[in-house]
């Protein structure tokens, strides 16, 4: 129960971790990394669709984040909404890496999470491939809303789009995604 209360605190905007970073709590940096690693990895993976690339992107995002946080004033740290801020950095890093990759085409060593079965992997990669075909803003909106389970207010905080725009982008994105799933049924056409 306690975890849930804390989560509600920082998703609602007030983030005690900002104050802990400002106060010099030596456990605060690890708490920040542990709290967001998995969700940021999931975002990076959904964009880059390769484990190593996702790990590198998250590492890079944290390095950029801490390099900035290290120079911020205590007042600024206290006032920070760390989650959307971490997302903004990760979105940029993932997008830039995707662009670089398109400029220098590489073979596609798509792999997904350790414990997953082959079927699971295939299913996940199918959906991610569908997401990858969406226009960028729709892809970001749908990913944040459903893969990252982010409320519209926070999506707006991360992307800078008004909430109405975010909702529209999610609706259009879902529509397209559903179309692509209907048009390309899984497992068909091979036999």
């Amino acid at each position, binding site marked *: 129960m306690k975890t849930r209360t804390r989560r509600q605190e920082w998703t609602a905007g007030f983030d005690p971790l900002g104050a802990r970073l400002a106060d*010099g709590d*030596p456990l605060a*940096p*690890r708490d920040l990394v542990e709290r967001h690693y998995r969700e940021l990895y999931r975002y990076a993976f959904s964009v880059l669709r390769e484990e190593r690339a*996702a*790990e590198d992107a998250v590492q890079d995002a944290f390095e950029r984040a801490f390099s900035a946080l290290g120079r911020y004033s205590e007042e600024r740290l206290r006032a920070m909404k760390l989650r959307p801020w971490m997302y903004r950095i990760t979105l940029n890093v993932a997008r830039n890496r995707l662009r670089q990759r398109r400029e220098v085409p590489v073979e596609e060593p798509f792999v997904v999470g350790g414990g997953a079965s082959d079927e699971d992997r295939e*299913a996940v990669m199918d959906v991610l491939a569908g997401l990858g075909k969406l226009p960028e803003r729709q892809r970001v909106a749908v990913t944040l809303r459903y*893969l990252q389970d982010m409320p519209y207010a926070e999506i707006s905080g991360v992307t800078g789009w008004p909430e109405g725009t975010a909702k529209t982008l999610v609706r259009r994105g*879902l529509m397209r995604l*559903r179309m692509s799933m209907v048009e390309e049924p899984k497992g068909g056409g091979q036999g």
Partner: protein
Amino acid sequence: MNERFTERDGELATASLREMAARIAPAREQAVLVDGVMAAVTDSFFSVESPLGAVYVTAGPYGVRYLTPAASEEEFARRYRERFGRFVSPAEGDEAADLAERIEAAFAGERVEVPLDLSRATPFQRRVLEVVRGIRRGEVRPYIWVAGEAGSPGASRAVGNVMANNPVPLLVPCHRVVRNDGRTGSFAFGAGEKVRLLRAEGVSPEEISGSPYVATPTTGIVCHATCRNAKRIQPHNRRAFRSVRDATDAGYRPCKVCRPVAAA
């Protein structure tokens, strides 16, 4: 085409997205990945007991980077961030424990190697810190001597600045650097602490103050008062001098071990 998209379609799409989200996880253990991030974004620290009380130490792979007394971990972390723009996290593992033991042994006067990472210092700062590191327990040297040994004769004031910002006090014993007239002078952690540290190392600040050089007619040599050769001079042969110039004017030549230098 849009008419074909129903609420039901939307639900199907979101359901598969949500289901998939739960399946995306790092292949490697998350703790390993978090450790990798921590190693890059924080400097690890530990605390040891020292002649200045509890001091906090950060160390990188090449050695100790920073050491300072602080009232608490939090105060240390804040000061560290202010100075270096980086966060700290508690050190774990045998390497840190081994380093902590070495540091405490060094504080106790044992001859142990404590690796220092002075890569963040400028070349001049590094030369000065290396020179000061070589000043032995029980001895002191004036700023002017440190400047000369570091290859910048006359840079006494600049040496004073390096001492004031010494990132690794005690390990680089800046408390053993005194004013050119032999008075102990200032210290980042208080002039009184400097006197106390020197006394604990067997130095008598009163003897050096005003007469930092000692010569003996038996050899005709002038030394720093705490040079190991000077300590062997019989009391009745001791000739105290205020400056090296006064001694050389009186016919003495500088010791080759402690190499006292005359002011320009």
